[in-house]
């Protein structure tokens, strides 16, 4: 069976509450950690909805009420229109992928057997279980022949979490619940796993409920972000750009941080802003003609390309020879190479690292598409520049 052909579920919270009986009820005391207060929101099919908030805000409780690891004390949760409270809990859970921070692989089973846990519970034929496990290991980037027969203790933290994701996907569930899935790995591995999940999601289009306490992760991963506050109150629910551009309350503004303007940069990609053209010449072109053209342009550098239009580096106007032909040795490769999928945040960071004002944008084959300047990034940051509008707007073309 193909991994691409999958269904996605709609999840609706309708006035969902979870109250915990306090050991000693006190008037005026804050709500018990993990409590949820009248939560209503709808996650459309195929979207990633991130529940984010400080610890004890009820985000994990909200997640676990979907697969009934926790039962609500009020309201109801519908998956594809069906109230989960009416479903058999074990059957329901087999239809919902579940990923937790500590992974929770079974130490006594091989990686292959771990991935096939739900298919085994569903009594798939053994051959199909094996086939599916191998397919999923390959999907999450673990070579089946190498990993299939290993035990969890022989894997790194990042590898284990990939197996956890593969295991959750095994029965092709229309809904995935992910509880701080990347919280226990180091930042470099976390970033890689986040990117891989986004890549998988572009292909699989599952409905994913994702819990984190990290606002940056929420902004990066979420199609929709639900910001929750202590006491289990939903403070704001919407696309990340909206939450950054227009926080609904002082709590949200503080939670997303004073650098929310900068954070918006991570929501836009190089392909979303207008690129600038630049004067170019190819190796072997006559130098005199190129010199004339670069002096006719206010930008004081010439970008040298190879025969296939791939950037080699910059030549300062003053150093373009008046005669002869252009040679590759004249150019200095200083600017970072960006592609259309690079976020503006990463682009700016790379430009600052290289101590330059411009980045060179190339396409998949390495050919020049144009140049991105710090000014263009600053323009995207202006308060009137709604990131959503940028995302929907100009497709940059130049160069």
């Amino acid at each position: 069976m193909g991994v691409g052909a999958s269904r996605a579920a709609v999840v609706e919270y309708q006035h969902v509450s979870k109250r915990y009986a306090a050991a000693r009820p006190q008037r005026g005391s804050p709500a018990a950690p993990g409590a949820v207060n009248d939560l209503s929101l709808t996650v459309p099919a195929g979207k990633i909805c991130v529940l984010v908030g400080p610890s004890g805000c009820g985000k994990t409780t909200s997640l676990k009420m979907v697969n009934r690891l926790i039962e609500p004390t009020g309201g109801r949760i519908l998956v594809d229109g069906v109230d989960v409270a009416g479903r058999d809990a074990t059957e329901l859970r087999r239809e919902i992928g579940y990923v937790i921070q500590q992974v929770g692989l079974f130490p006594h089973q091989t990686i292959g057997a771990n991935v096939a846990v739900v298919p085994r519970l569903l009594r798939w034929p053994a051959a199909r279980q094996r086939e599916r496990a191998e397919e999923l290991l390959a999907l999450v980037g673990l070579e089946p022949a190498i990993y299939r027969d290993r035990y969890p203790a022989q894997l790194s933290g990042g590898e284990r979490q990939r197996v956890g994701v593969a295991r959750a996907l095994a029965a092709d569930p229309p809904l995935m619940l992910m509880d701080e899935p990347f919280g226990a790995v180091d930042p470099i591995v976390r970033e890689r796993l986040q990117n891989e999940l986004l890549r998988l999601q572009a292909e699989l289009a599952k409905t994913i409920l994702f819990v984190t306490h990290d606002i940056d992760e929420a902004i990066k991963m979420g199609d929709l972000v639900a910001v929750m506050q202590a006491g289990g109150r939903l403070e704001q629910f919407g696309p990340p750009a909206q939450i950054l551009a227009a926080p609904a309350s002082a709590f949200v503004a503080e939670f997303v941080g004073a650098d929310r303007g900068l954070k918006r940069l991570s929501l836009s990609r190089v392909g979303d802003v207008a690129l600038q053209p630049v004067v170019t010449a190819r190796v072997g072109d006559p130098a005199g003609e190129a010199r004339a053209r670069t002096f006719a342009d206010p930008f004081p550098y010439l970008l040298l390309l190879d025969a296939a239009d791939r950037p080699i580096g910059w030549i300062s106007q003053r150093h373009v020879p008046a005669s002869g032909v252009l040679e590759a040795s004249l150019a200095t490769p200083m600017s970072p190479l960006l592609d259309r999928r690079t976020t503006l945040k990463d682009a700016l960071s790379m430009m600052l690292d290289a101590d330059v004002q411009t980045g060179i944008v190339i396409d998949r084959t390495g050919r020049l598409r144009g140049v991105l300047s710090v000014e263009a990034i600053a323009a995207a940051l202006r308060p009137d520049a709604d990131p959503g509008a940028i995302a929907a707007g100009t497709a940059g073309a130049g160069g």
Partner: protein
Amino acid sequence: MIDWGWLAGHVDAIAYRTGQHLYLAAIAVGVGFAISLVLALVAARRRVLYPPISALAGILYTIPSLALFAALISITGFSVVTAEVPLVMYTLVILVRNIVAGLDGVPAEVLEAADGMGHTRRQRLWRVELPLAVPLIVAGLRLATVSTIGLVTITGTISDAFGGLGYFILDGYHRGGFPTEMYAGALPSILLALGADFLFVRAQRRITPWAQTRALEATAS
């Protein structure tokens, strides 16, 4: 020192008593394990029952075997039941505690994952909890088996029909100390205990390859 003539004349008797020794010990550990497993599963599911179960097993362990034999003979006579009841009782304290400790040692996140993926209570127990408890369960079985093999000896005080290899030890003692016969009882008994322990270690390696992965990695690198 050693009366080789006596030994040569008693080869068959020693073989018979060795077999009897193993038989008495195997029944005791087998029955003790079955009872312990039930008690441990009850205790694991209903946590409040664990302290009383554990305490009861501990109290049983303190009852002197000779007193127990005397009491049991009036009920069950000179039967194998009289011999086995104390042996079984003494295995309980070790086995119950080890099985419960094994079940307790299953990491919380593994249980959460098992539940979240849709295991029923029974599936979780048989597919996840018990397999992960195997190393501690086997550790308990090793201890119980070695101590039971030592204890079988005292069943000889019920009658000459029991005692396994202990028969020779008691008989040699009653003859006013006949070293050859006492050795003929003690040495095979020690070898049985060591052999059983060795077999358990081998068996555990076979059934829990996952628990050896770190050791395997160390040898591979």
